[in-house]
C-alpha cells in the first residue's frame, strides 16, 4: 500500500448495497490535496451514495475510507465534519425557518466551540456574526442576510447551502450537484463561483455533476462511476475521448 | 415451585401474550400502512371492552352463543367508529408534521378515555364467561382456567388469519405493498385512501376483539386503555413497527415476562414492559423485525 502524503481522501475497495441491491462493488480512488475534481456517471450509478458513505451518513459494506490518514469508515457524520470535511447537498438542505444569516451563524458557532458552552458570550457572538457576514459575502448573499432562508429562490438556497459548508472551513469540500435546478444564467455564476472559491481558499473540492460545462470546464480530474464500478479516471480530455465512457453515456442518454 | 406450577404460569403468560398480540398487531398494522402511531388504539380497545359489557347485560345466562355474539358484534362496532375517526380526522393530518399527528391521536385519547368514564362510570366491570369456558380444564394434571386456554387458541387463530390475509389474498398484497412502498402505491393504480381506511378499520376491529376477550378475562376499568397502549408500544418496539411476526414475538415476551416476574417482584413486575422497551430502543431501535434507518 503506497501511502501518498498528498492524498487527502482515499477510497479503498468500497462496496455498498441496499436491501440486497448492489450499488457498486470494489471501488477505489484517491483525491489529491488541493485538487478540483469531479465524479460523474449516469443516474443511479451511486454518486450520491458515495458521498453519503464518505460523509458518514451510511456505512460501507466493505472497504475503507481514509480521510487525512485516518480511517473514517462508519464514523458519525459530526466526527468526520470535525476532522475537516464539509458537504453541500443536492436537494437543498438548509434550516428553513431561520434567517440566511442564522444558517451560517449556526455553523460558525458550532465550529468555534470545541466543547460545550451553554450560555452566551456576547463578544464571541459578535465576532461569529462578522465571520458569518464574510462568508455570505463570498458567495454573494450578504444583502439577503435577514431573509427567512426557506423563502429564497432555488439558486440562492443552493448558494446558502454552499455557504454553510464553507463556514466549516473544511479542508475537503464535497459538492453534490451544485448546478442542479439552476437556470442557464445561474449556472454560469455557479461555475465562476466554484472556481473562484477554489482559487481563493485553496481547499480540495470534489463535486458530483451532470452538467458537462462544469465538469470539463474547471475540473482537473474526472472519475466516472458506472456499471457498479469505477469505469474510468483521468483528465477531462482523457475522459472525453474514452470509448467506454462515451458508450455508457450514449447508451443511457435520454 | 413445582413443574406443574411453572406450566400454569406458562399458560397464563402465554394467554396474556396472545391477548396482547391481538391488540398490538392492530397497532403495528396501522402504523405500517398509515405511518401514524395511533395513541388512541388503547382507548378503542377499552371501548370495545365496555361495549361488550353493556351488550352482555342484555343477555342472560351463560350460553356460549351469547358470547359468540359479542365476539361477532363488538369488533365491527369499534371498526365503524374507526372509520369515522379516520375519514374525518386522521385524513387531515397525513401530510402534516409528525408532531401534529401525534398530538391529534393524543387528543383522541383524552376525549375517548373520558367519554368512557362519562358513559360507564368509574367502577370496574366485567363480562361473565360463558359456562362452557368458565371453570377449568384438566391438562398435565393441572387445573387450568378454561378461558385462558380458549384465548390460547384464539390468539394463534387470529395470527394465522392475519397471515392468510396478508400473504394469500389480493387485499393483503396491497396492504403489504403499502407498508413497503408507501410512496409509489398510488402510481400502481391503487385507491390509496381506501387502503388506509380499511386497514385502519381492521386495526380497530382487532382492538375491539381484544377488548371483548379482555372483558371476560378480568375486570375492566378506566385504566386499561393506557395500560394496554403502553404494553402495545413495548410490543411493537420490540418486534418492529409494521411487522406482525414481530408483534407476535414481542407480545409473547411481554406476556411471559410479566407473568413470571410476578414471582420475585410482585407488583413491580409491571415495570417489565418499560424496561424491555427502553432496552430495545437503545440497543436496536427498529426492533427485531423492523427496518433500520427510519
Amino acid at each position, binding site marked *: 500500500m503506497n501511502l501518498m502524503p498528498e492524498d487527502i481522501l482515499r477510497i479503498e475497495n468500497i462496496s455498498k448495497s441496499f436491501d440486497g441491491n448492489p450499488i457498486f462493488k470494489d471501488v477505489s480512488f484517491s483525491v489529491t490535496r488541493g485538487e478540483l475534481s469531479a465524479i460523474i456517471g449516469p443516474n443511479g450509478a451511486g454518486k450520491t451514495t458515495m458521498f453519503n458513505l464518505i460523509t458518514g451518513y451510511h456505512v460501507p459494506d466493505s472497504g475503507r475510507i481514509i480521510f487525512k490518514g485516518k480511517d473514517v469508515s462508519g464514523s458519525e457524520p459530526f466526527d468526520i*465534519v470535525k476532522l475537516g470535511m464539509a458537504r453541500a447537498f443536492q436537494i437543498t438542505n438548509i434550516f428553513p425557518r431561520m434567517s440566511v444569516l*442564522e444558517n451560517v451563524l449556526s455553523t460558525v458557532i458550532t465550529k468555534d466551540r470545541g466543547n460545550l458552552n451553554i450560555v452566551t458570550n456576547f463578544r464571541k457572538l459578535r465576532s461569529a456574526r462578522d465571520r458569518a457576514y464574510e462568508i455570505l459575502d463570498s458567495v454573494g448573499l450578504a444583502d439577503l442576510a435577514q431573509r427567512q432562508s426557506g423563502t429564497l429562490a432555488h439558486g440562492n438556497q443552493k448558494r446558502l447551502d454552499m455557504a454553510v459548508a464553507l463556514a466549516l472551513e473544511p479542508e475537503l469540500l464535497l459538492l453534490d450537484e451544485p448546478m442542479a435546478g439552476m437556470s442557464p444564467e445561474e449556472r454560469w455564476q455557479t461555475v465562476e463561483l466554484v472556481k473562484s472559491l477554489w482559487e481563493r481558499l485553496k481547499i480540495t473540492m470534489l463535486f458530483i455533476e451532470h452538467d458537462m460545462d462544469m465538469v470539463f470546464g474547471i475540473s482537473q480530474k474526472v472519475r466516472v462511476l458506472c456499471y457498479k464500478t469505477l469505469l474510468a479516471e483521468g483528465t477531462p480530455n482523457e475522459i472525453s475521448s474514452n470509448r467506454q465512457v462515451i458508450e455508457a453515456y450514449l447508451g443511457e442518454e435520454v | 415451585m413445582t413443574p406443574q406450577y411453572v406450566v400454569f404460569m406458562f399458560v397464563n403468560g402465554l394467554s396474556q401474550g396472545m391477548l396482547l398480540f391481538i391488540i398490538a398487531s392492530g397497532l403495528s398494522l396501522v402504523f405500517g400502512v398509515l405511518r401514524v402511531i395511533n395513541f388512541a388504539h388503547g382507548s378503542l380497545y377499552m371501548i370495545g371492552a365496555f361495549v361488550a359489557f353493556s351488550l352482555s347485560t342484555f343477555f342472560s345466562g351463560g350460553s356460549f352463543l351469547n358470547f359468540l355474539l359479542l365476539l361477532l358484534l363488538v369488533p365491527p362496532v369499534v371498526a365503524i367508529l374507526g372509520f369515522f375517526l379516520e375519514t374525518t380526522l386522521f385524513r387531515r393530518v397525513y401530510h402534516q408534521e409528525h408532531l401534529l399527528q401525534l398530538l391529534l391521536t*393524543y387528543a383522541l385519547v383524552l376525549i375517548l378515555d373520558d367519554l368512557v368514564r362519562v358513559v360507564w362510570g368509574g367502577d370496574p366491570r366485567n363480562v361473565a364467561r360463558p359456562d362452557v369456558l368458565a371453570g377449568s380444564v384438566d391438562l398435565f394434571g393441572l387445573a387450568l382456567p378454561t378461558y385462558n386456554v380458549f384465548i390460547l387458541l384464539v390468539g394463534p387463530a387470529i395470527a394465522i388469519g392475519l397471515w392468510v390475509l396478508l400473504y394469500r389474498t389480493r387485499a393483503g398484497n396491497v396492504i403489504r405493498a403499502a407498508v413497503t412502498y408507501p410512496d409509489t402505491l398510488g402510481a400502481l393504480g391503487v385507491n390509496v385512501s381506501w387502503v388506509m381506511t380499511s386497514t385502519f378499520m381492521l386495526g380497530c376491529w382487532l382492538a375491539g376483539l381484544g377488548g371483548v376477550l379482555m372483558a371476560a378475562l378480568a375486570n375492566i376499568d378506566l385504566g386499561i386503555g393506557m395500560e394496554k397502549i403502553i404494553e402495545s408500544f413495548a410490543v411493537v418496539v420490540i418486534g418492529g413497527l409494521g411487522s406482525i411476526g414481530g408483534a407476535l414475538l414481542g407480545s409473547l415476551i411481554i406476556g411471559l415476562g410479566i407473568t413470571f416476574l410476578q414471582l420475585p417482584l410482585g407488583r413491580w413486575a409491571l415495570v417489565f414492559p*418499560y424496561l424491555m422497551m*427502553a432496552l430495545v*430502543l437503545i440497543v436496536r431501535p427498529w426492533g427485531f423485525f423492523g427496518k433500520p434507518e427510519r
Partner: protein
Amino acid sequence: MVIALFFLPFVLAQFGRTGEYWIWVTTEMIIMGLFAMSLNLILGFGGMVSFGHAAFFGVGAYTVALLMKKAGAPLYLALLAAPIVAAVAAAVVGWFCVRLIGLYFAILTLAFSQLLYMIVYQWYTFTGGDDGIHGIPRPEFLGPINYYLLCLILFLLCFMLMRMIVNSSFGLTIRTIRENMERAKFIGINVRRYQWLNFIIAGAFAGLAGGLLTELNRFAQTEFLHWSKSAEPILASLVGGMYSFVGPAIGSAFLMFLKIVVQQSHKGLVELWAIILGLVLLLVVLFAPGGLVGMYQQLFKRGDS
C-alpha cells in the same frame, strides 16, 4: 403589563374571600405557566414531543413535599433542591430518550413517566402512594399575597433565564437541530448531547414549578406525575403558540381561565373537562397549529416579510 401583575394581588385582596380565591388561582396560573414554558423548551424550540414532562414536575413536587414534611427543611432549601433533583431525573431519563428521535422518543418519555408514576404510587412507605403527602408547612410570613409575589418573582427570573438560554448560541444550536436534524449533524453538531442538555434544563424548570405548586396547595399527590398532567403543558404550548417564547404561558393562563369559566357556568360541564381539553387540542391541531400567538401574528402582522 408586568407592573400590573405586581399590583394585582393587592387589588384582589380587597375583595375578601373571592379575592383570596382569585389570588390563589392567579398564583397557580403563574406556576403552570412556568411549567408550560419549560416544556416548550423541548417542544417548540427543540422540536421534540415529550409526553412525560409531568415526571419532572412531580419529582420536583415530591422533593419539596418530602424535604419539608419529613426532613423539616426550610422552604428556600426545598425550592432550591427541587430543580436540582428534577434535573438529575431528567438527566437519567433524557440520556436514554435522546438516543431516539420523533415518535420513539415520545413513546419512551411516556414510558418513563408512567414508570415513575408507578414507582411513586407503589412506594407507599416513602411517598404515601395514592394518598399523597399532606400538610406541608408554610412559613408564616408567606400569606397568599406574599406567596403570589414570590412565585411571580421566581417566574420572572426563570423567564429571563430561559430567554437568555434561547437567545444564546446554545439556543441557536438547539433551533438548528430542530430545523434540520440531519444537516445539523453535517455541520458538526453532536445532536444527542445538545438535546440531552436541553432536556435537563427543561426538566429543572419543571421541577421548580412542581415544587412551587406543592407549596401553594400544601400537598403533593401522584396525579402530578400522571400522563394526563403531561398533557397540560403540551396543550398550553400548542394553544398559546409553541414557536413563540411567551406563548405557552399565555396558553396556560387561557386554559385555566377557560376551566374556571366552565366550572362556574355549568357545574355539570366540569365533569367533561378532559373531553373539552381534548376537543380544544383537536381543533388547534387541525386548524390553528400556530396557536393563539400564531393567529395573532397572522392577523396583525400581515404584509410583513
